[in-house]
């Protein structure tokens, strides 16, 4: 019985592929070449990834990110936090992921002059 269980576990592990991919390879989104604007590109990302906590009633309500002025005013901090490496407790968004493309859009928004 124990032997069977052991064999089943070993086979189970072996069945899953060990082929590696990079984060970029599994992501499809591309960064727009046009000038990035808050309304067209950034607002959607903020609503999908940030405002569930960073708004009134959220766990990070003291730092809201609902409006252009709020996001603009915190842009350096936002860029710092979303680019922190995995394993850093200050990495954002907490308990979720952000694609490399979304990170690049926010960085490019600042470069394009906000």
């Amino acid at each position, binding site marked *: 019985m*124990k032997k069977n269980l052991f064999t089943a*576990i070993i086979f189970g*592990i072996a069945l*899953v592929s060990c082929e*590696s991919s990079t*984060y970029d390879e*599994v992501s499809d989104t591309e960064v727009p070449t046009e000038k990035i604007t808050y309304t067209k590109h950034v607002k959607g990302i903020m609503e999908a990834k940030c405002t569930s906590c960073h708004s009134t009633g959220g766990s990070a309500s003291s730092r809201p990110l609902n409006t252009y002025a709020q996001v603009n005013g915190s842009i350096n901090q936002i860029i710092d936090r979303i680019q922190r490496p995995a394993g850093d407790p200050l990495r954002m968004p907490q308990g979720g992921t952000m694609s490399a493309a979304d990170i690049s859009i926010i960085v490019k928004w600042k470069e394009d002059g906000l």
Partner: protein
Amino acid sequence: MIKRVTMLLLLSTSALFAQEDDLLKQIDTLSSNFDFVPPAFKGLQIVTAQSTKLAAKGDLYFVVAHRFGDVSEGFDNFFGLDDAATKIGFIYGLSDNLSLSLSRETFMKTYEGAIKYRIIKQSEKFPVEVVGYHTVTLNSELDKDDFQKLEFSNRISYLSQLLISRRFSESFSLQLSPSYVHKNLYMPNTDEKDQMLAGFGGRYKISKRVSINAEYFVNFSESDVYKNPASLGVDIETGGHVFQLLFSNSQVNSDIGYLTNATGDWGKGNIYFGFNLYRVF
């Protein structure tokens, strides 16, 4: 009548002595047949990494582990207490030499399955204890909206370790842990898909129920971002509990993340406080 009772008493006493002799002989034979050295570590983990200790047959361990945020942030996050990561899991001893475990933790919403088995026990005839340890982890945090071409296998990472320990004396033990990590998904500029590490750990008992533990891993695939994990802990035994208090430069609880995603820096004071709590059923 009195004579009879005296005879009976004498007989039973001599029988009792004879029995005692036999038992004492048994103890002598037992000790010469089973000259194994007691486990090198009291906890299943030295600090965060695994020790050579295994769960005994039929033992079910319940483990709760916390790692708090960066202590150097001070009152901003109350010395890290606001940014806690938690692991909850079970370990079951199928035999004295084989145990299985399953856990879930905050970092990458990771599920971790592990198998640990003893290859050789330290004894008077063999100088070290050798244990094999393998984990498979699943990253359940990855979102299809962000990573459209994501497949199930991309969520998986593997760890294989050979744990070699020696209990030098009643109070002092050391361990070497050569380790290999494979990641099915990685960030090429900060990470490598295959990583080899050499681990060193030790335990020094300072009183009957308290020991000081430390461990350090050298990662041979150098990264600009991730540091070599280094941790310092205290084991406190209290009845059915082993309580491990610790400081580490890696905030992650699961083995792979702990070994390859350490972002803290002891030199700059960016370290994390945490604890492991075990309950044995």
